[in-house]
């Protein structure tokens, strides 16, 4: 569990040296430069960088697969590639993007880097476990990539039985094993965060002084702990089913394939909030910083994070309205799904109210944040269409669903990820990126995203089923439009990769707090020293202590 005992920890604490002094101890990036010092590091910041580089790689793989999918759909008759190639492309896209990008994206990178900084700790509670989780992640990724290299998987990322167990002739087993292993990495990360947030807060850092980012990650970590083991069991049973014909999901022996869907969605619906909540945390940091105003309704936003993480466990059945589950279950799950609207509305309206009467700077992170709010609102409300039973019977498993969850996953998580990446880039690397390029890319991504995915709402209610390699010719116009949007989106993704990497060497040196933002992570140098703070940070009187504060907000902290 805990690291080996070093008793001289306190002695290492250096006296505070002002930032401008040249002879300061090297920061975490420059403390050591051997490969060993990276691959065997227990520094949460370095582990975050390991995660950042690996998930960027997976994002590229997933995006390329998406490119293949959009390429195939330019023509309705499947002339560009075989159905089999198409099926493998969308499966790789789904598996890689969900399990190897979206789920670890914000928690394992920003969460890993920032939680100890934000709560004023020297590291996570279990640094070795943190490194282990990265190795477990890469181990799982290896299995899945082997499946892709050997010839791919064609089951869809949902792995529904009995297609995945008895009928698919592709490399399902290694892919399943990889995804199972990655679950352990999530569990270890979540465990580390929960314990760190509970036990490692600096003196005076009470729960209601924590940034919403930390609240959101606490809620996310609870989902990691409570949901992931169930998908592990489901996948272990699926592996056993495929390898040994266990029978529990196999109708040939009286097993029930719908049972797999229950276990799968018990995890995979909450997993949506694993992807969404950290993004909400990021937005809750960016919006006050660029509105120069205290976050509106802080306590409500904090409670809404925990609320979302709890409600999400009661609604998984809304993925199964047409799957033959009982009508009673459908009614119950549908009704409960509407409850998700409550905490989601709290978040959106509070962000909007934070902007009201602020003093706005529309820098790159803020552009992403504003794009996020708009797209998340659309994505969330279209989710309620799908939760409405009679509407679901029409648009279930159509492109409406595809558009809906891309509005949440890309419009939500990816925009928040990019916004956060730009917001904290100076902190991570000590360099500033090119602001004009940043703004151009943010606008490009927003436009490209909408051109890609808005037509898919229309395709969906017109009745085009998802996962179709070929489709009726009357849908071609909208599909071509969508593919055109995807090229804009691709350009929008490419620019940040280029100018961010460029800034590593040629960017302007970043000051400790380039945005004049609040929060303990801005109290230390950019990039921070290995043990995070030169001297114990002083916890502010209230969170989000920005110049503009509405009176009602102050009331909450009396």
């Amino acid at each position, binding site marked *: 569990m805990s690291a080996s005992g070093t008793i001289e920890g306190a002695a290492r604490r250096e006296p505070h040296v002002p930032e401008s002094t040249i002879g300061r101890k090297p920061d975490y990036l420059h403390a050591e430069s051997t490969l060993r010092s990276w691959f065997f590091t227990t520094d949460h910041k370095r582990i975050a960088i390991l995660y950042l580089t690996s998930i960027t790689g997976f994002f590229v793989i997933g995006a390329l697969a998406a490119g293949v999918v959009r390429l195939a759909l330019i023509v309705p008759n499947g002339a560009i590639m075989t*159905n089999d190639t198409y*099926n493998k492309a969308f499966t790789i896209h789904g598996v890689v993007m969900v399990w190897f990008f979206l789920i670890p994206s914000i928690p394992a990178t920003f969460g890993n880097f920032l939680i100890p900084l934000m709560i004023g700790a020297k590291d996570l509670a279990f640094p070795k476990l943190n490194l282990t989780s990265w190795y477990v992640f890469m181990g799982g990724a290896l299995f899945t990539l082997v499946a892709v290299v050997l010839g791919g998987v*064609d089951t*869809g990322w949902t792995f529904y039985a*009995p*297609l995945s167990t008895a*009928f*698919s002739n592709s490399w399902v087993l290694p892919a399943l094993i990889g995804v199972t292993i990655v679950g352990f990495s999530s569990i270890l990360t979540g465990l580390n965060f929960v314990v760190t947030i509970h036990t490692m807060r600096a003196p005076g850092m009470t729960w209601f002084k924590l940034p919403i980012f930390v609240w959101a990650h606490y809620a996310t970590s609870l989902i990691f702990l409570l949901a992931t083991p169930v998908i592990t069991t489901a996948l272990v049973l699926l592996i056993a089913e495929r390898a040994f014909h266990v029978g529990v999901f196999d109708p040939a022996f009286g*097993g029930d*394939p719908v049972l797999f869907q229950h276990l799968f969605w018990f995890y995979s619906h909450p997993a949506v909030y694993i992807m969404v909540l950290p993004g909400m945390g990021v937005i809750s940091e960016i919006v006050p910083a660029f509105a120069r105003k205290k976050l509106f*309704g802080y306590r409500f936003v904090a409670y809404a994070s925990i609320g979302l993480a709890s409600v999400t466990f009661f609604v998984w059945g809304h993925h199964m309205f*047409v799957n*033959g589950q009982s009508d009673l279950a*459908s009614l119950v799950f*549908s009704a409960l799904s*509407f409850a998700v609207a409550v905490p989601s*509305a*709290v978040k959106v*309206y*509070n962000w*909007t109210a934070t*902007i*009201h*009467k602020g*003093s*706005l*700077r529309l820098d790159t992170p803020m552009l992403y944040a*504003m794009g996020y*709010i*708009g797209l998340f*609102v*659309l994505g969330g*409300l*279209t989710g309620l*269409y799908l939760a*409405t*039973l009679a*509407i*679901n*019977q*029409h648009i279930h*498993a*159509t492109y409406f669903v595809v558009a809906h969850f891309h509005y949440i996953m890309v419009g939500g998580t990816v925009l928040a990820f990019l916004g956060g990446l730009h917001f904290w880039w100076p902190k991570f690397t000590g360099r500033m990126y090119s602001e004009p390029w940043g703004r151009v890319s943010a606008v490009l991504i927003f436009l490209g995203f909408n051109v890609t995915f808005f037509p898919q709402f229309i395709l969906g209610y017109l*009745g085009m*089923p998802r*996962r*179709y*390699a*070929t*489709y*009726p010719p*009357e849908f*071609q*116009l*909208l599909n071509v439009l969508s593919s055109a949007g995807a090229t804009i989106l691709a350009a929008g993704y490419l620019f940040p990769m280029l100018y961010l990497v460029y800034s590593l060497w040629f960017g302007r040196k970043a000051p400790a707090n380039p945005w004049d933002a609040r929060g303990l992570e801005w109290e230390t140098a950019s990039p921070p020293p290995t043990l995070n703070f030169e001297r114990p940070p002083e916890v502010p009187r209230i969170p989000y202590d920005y110049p503009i504060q*509405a*009176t*009602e907000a102050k*009331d*909450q902290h009396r």
Partner: protein
Amino acid sequence: MTPDHPALQLWPVAASATAVETDELILAFTVLTLVLTVPVFIAITWFALRYREGSEADRTPSGIRSNLIEISWMLIPFLLTLVFFAWGAKLFIQSKNPPPDAMVVEVIGRQWMWKFQHPTGQSEINDLHLPIGQPIKLRIISQDVIHALYIPAVRMQIDALPDRYTQMWFKADKVGTFHLYCSEYCGTDHSVMGGKVTFMNPGDYQDWLVHAGAQQGKVASGRALYQAYGCAGCHEPGSAVRAPGFAGLFGSQVGLADGRTVTADAAWLREKILNPNGDRLAGGGKQVMPSFAGRIPEQELGLLVDFIRSYPATGHAAEATR
């Protein structure tokens, strides 16, 4: 393109009263969505312009009590959307309770084809002909993986499960031909697993049952089987395997490896499908076709032979029915 070109159509055709009701629900929900989102969009844009750094704006706190606002924007959208839960649930319950006089059509899903059997015994593959003005109940099951039958024109879909029956019912009120899909991903040819549903006047339907249902439907069914059993993968001109084509085959004289010559009649074709290793063909091609004995039911064998019988003298399988 003319304005009524299908590519420019922005709303799917509704062919039943339930479909119209579902559309009303969707449209009403869209109005609510706009009511809830447009103010947020306008507010964000307006605030972004009005309160930009350096602009002259009143930034004094409004003094509104935040708890009241918080509770109101938590509850009001929630209660508004609950109305739609109730509405959607009402339609859902209707859709789950078919009237007792519904005409029952049996549906079997299989990788990658649908088989429909009318109450009078006629069966169709992938295409479905149904009368309007008459409640129809589809009893659905799958023979292998999970499929889903989806008919957008009636705004309905339901999974075809391998272990138990599911059902769907509707009463079409519009004559026409509409799409019919598989909407639960089921493997390689998932996107090909579908066809057309044709809603007809009851008189026309009776007529179809007597004439077309028994005759013309056969070739189309045979073509679907030809695709579904994977025959097309080898026997269609241009395939990599270069198996013998069917153009002009039926009734012709076929030379065999042992020097004999046989007539490719129905009985010989049937036997050749079941036992490809018998009666080796002249020409020295390697015999790679697996035996389909026990894999294709007798009635479907007949359909396949009918399909080969009507295979056009030149060209591809698709032309056999067009």
